[in-house]
């Protein structure tokens, strides 16, 4: 098929196969990809809304045994720069989030061997007790697998316990590229194979949880492997229908073991547009302004995205790898409206909650993203003493001085 024939197929609502998607990705002019992706966005969201959510991306610990080569955020067990946030600190962050109209915590962290499943259950239960309507978009598939291994319980059982404690939905982090050759090269095969990541999502969907899916591209994968990632997500979505949205972002190389270059802005827009074309069964695509900046983030709305993601009050992971973009609600809404769309606040299920909150009441401007913990803060939460540690460093921290 020629590029124009594949384009006609997309225009008429047909589904592209992997070979056709690869040809589009490699050979189609960038504006054509944009036009095709925009037509799909318009078909799926004819009302002309672009949504966003006010939430906080909290990383409860940076201690991690996974040691992924692309990650600048983690610290090994026993590192003096390692931290765990205390319950009180997390409650304070939730209260700050609610004060600016936030509805959810995106809670993810390292694979810390000294935080047992019970720590998460107690945390979730306490959050739900204190803030009953506040949502927990928590623990990506590799974290669920880590807890499964740590607790020696099956993934479905871990999900049941977390759901019973208050988990509302599962973020799609840790997918990177869902191809095991790539995962081995990135040292993330051990934390979750491609099948394992997909299985966690399959279980979550079958239990009624909605989840997102992500792709971190631009490391060592080939174009074919990028497409394989998208195809595997599409297959699972055909099976379960549980994904609400897809988010692609480019690998951020600063301070990582892997190093290398970041993919360019045009590569991001092409990847986003092809994702919109391939993932014809995903309702929403998010713009990754946190990695691309506000300008390319806004241009994403012409390349298939219908959601500006999060008014992120806090971000730690991509910031550690060099990305430092920040937009508060006023700025996100300005960008949406400047692109010719109407801006709507949403929840994690992509239900529209209303108009921009800053138009309803006074909300302080946020021109800088908060971080989990200030440099030099080496305090240890008191409640950690209530949970058994597995690592030697963790056990030492729990020794009460006589």
């Amino acid at each position, binding site marked *: 098929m020629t590029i124009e024939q594949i384009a006609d197929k997309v225009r008429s609502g047909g589904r592209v196969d992997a070979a056709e998607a690869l040809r589009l990705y490699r050979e189609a002019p*960038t504006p054509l990809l944009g036009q095709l992706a925009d037509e799909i966005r318009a078909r799926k969201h004819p009302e002309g809304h672009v949504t966003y959510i006010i939430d906080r991306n909290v990383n409860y610990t940076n201690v991690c045994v996974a040691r992924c080569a692309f990650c600048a955020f983690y610290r090994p067990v026993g590192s003096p720069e390692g931290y765990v946030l205390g319950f009180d600190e997390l409650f304070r962050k939730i209260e700050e989030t609610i004060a600016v109209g936030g509805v959810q915590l995106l809670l993810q962290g390292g694979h810390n061997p000294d935080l047992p499943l019970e720590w998460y259950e107690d945390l979730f239960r306490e959050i739900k007790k204190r803030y009953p309507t506040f949502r927990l978009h928590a623990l990506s598939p590799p974290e669920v697998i880590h807890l499964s291994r740590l607790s020696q319980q099956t993934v479905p059982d871990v999900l049941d316990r977390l759901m019973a404690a208050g988990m509302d939905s599962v973020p799609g982090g840790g997918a990177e590229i869902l191809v095991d050759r790539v995962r081995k090269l990135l040292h993330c095969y051990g934390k979750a194979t491609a099948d394992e990541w997909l299985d966690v999502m399959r279980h979550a969907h079958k239990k009624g949880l909605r989840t997102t899916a992500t792709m971190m591209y631009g490391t060592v994968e080939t174009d074919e492997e990028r497409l394989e990632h998208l195809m595997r997500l599409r297959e699972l979505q055909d099976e379960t229908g549980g994904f609400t949205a897809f988010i692609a972002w480019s690998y951020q190389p600063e301070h990582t073991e892997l190093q290398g270059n970041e993919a360019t802005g*045009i590569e991001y827009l092409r990847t986003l547009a092809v994702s919109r074309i391939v993932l014809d069964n995903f309702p929403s695509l998010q713009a990754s302004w946190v990695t691309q*900046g506000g300008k390319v*983030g806004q241009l994403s709305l*012409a390349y298939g995205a219908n959601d500006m993601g999060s008014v992120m009050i806090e971000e730690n992971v991509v910031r550690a790898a060099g990305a430092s973009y920040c937009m508060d609600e006023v700025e996100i809404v300005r*960008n949406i409206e400047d692109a010719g769309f109407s801006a709507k606040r949403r929840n994690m299920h992509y239900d529209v909650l209303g108009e921009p909150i800053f138009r309803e009441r006074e909300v302080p401007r946020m021109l800088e993203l908060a971080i989990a913990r200030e440099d030099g803060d080496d305090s240890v939460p008191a409640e950690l003493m209530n949970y058994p540690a597995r690592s030697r460093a963790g056990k030492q921290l729990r020794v009460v001085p006589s």
Partner: protein
Amino acid sequence: MTVTAAELASFASSHDIISLGVAADDARRQRHGARTTFVRVADVDAAPGAPIAIPPSTGEVRIVGTPASRAAAVQRVREVVAAAGKTPVSAYSLADLEQLAAAEPVPLRALLEELRDAGLELVAQAPFDQLRDARMAIEQVNIAGLALARLTMEKLPTADIPELYRQIAALQHDVGVIKAFAPLPRSTNPAVPTTGYDDVRRVALARLFIDNIPSIQVDWALYGPKMAQVALTVGADDLDAVSPLDEAEEGRRRAPLEEIRRNIRAAALEAVERDGRFDVR
């Protein structure tokens, strides 16, 4: 593809930046093909006696800042020209020189001739929105035997884009010596930065409306790799202010020269390095 006046008017008021970008890219490719030029610029301060560092890969030495006096402007040009060797030297904003000439007082042309006699080749920029009389000032540059490196916009214009660009096309019609126009503002309100749509629209409409200025330019350092790269796909063909420092502290692939070439290649364009005279290096 020829864009009609009606299409231009429609593009100017539309949110369809893809179609606008396609039209501007067609116009750019008719003129330049895939060729994308860039210049590595070493900035030096306008104060006489200030340190001068000119890396060997520099394609243009640019004296930046406002000269304190006519004598200081001339002295600084002499110092920098002596240090620059064969590398072309550009200096000052034409708007600042207009003001300096008025303050001294001396005719603008006399001031420009003094700078030329001190060894200056190029006036670094002519900010269209800051000049008292753009046509007269640019003509004086030409008559004084200097070249103009670029026409710029200092601030976000309040006039509508089509009207502004018609004025700039008319200016070039009269003076005929503008080689490059940089349509994106050099200073914006940090609390309300321009958006990606804004920037694409300004660059693309510049290429479509102003068909008599050869190059549409974007400042690599000011607008950053991502936006500058996007601009190259919607009408821009020249990148200004690339760093001449090619230190490879983080590996050769992350050095500035390789980064700019990689970005140009990733936009399916061909990178060509030029100097301040627009000569290929």
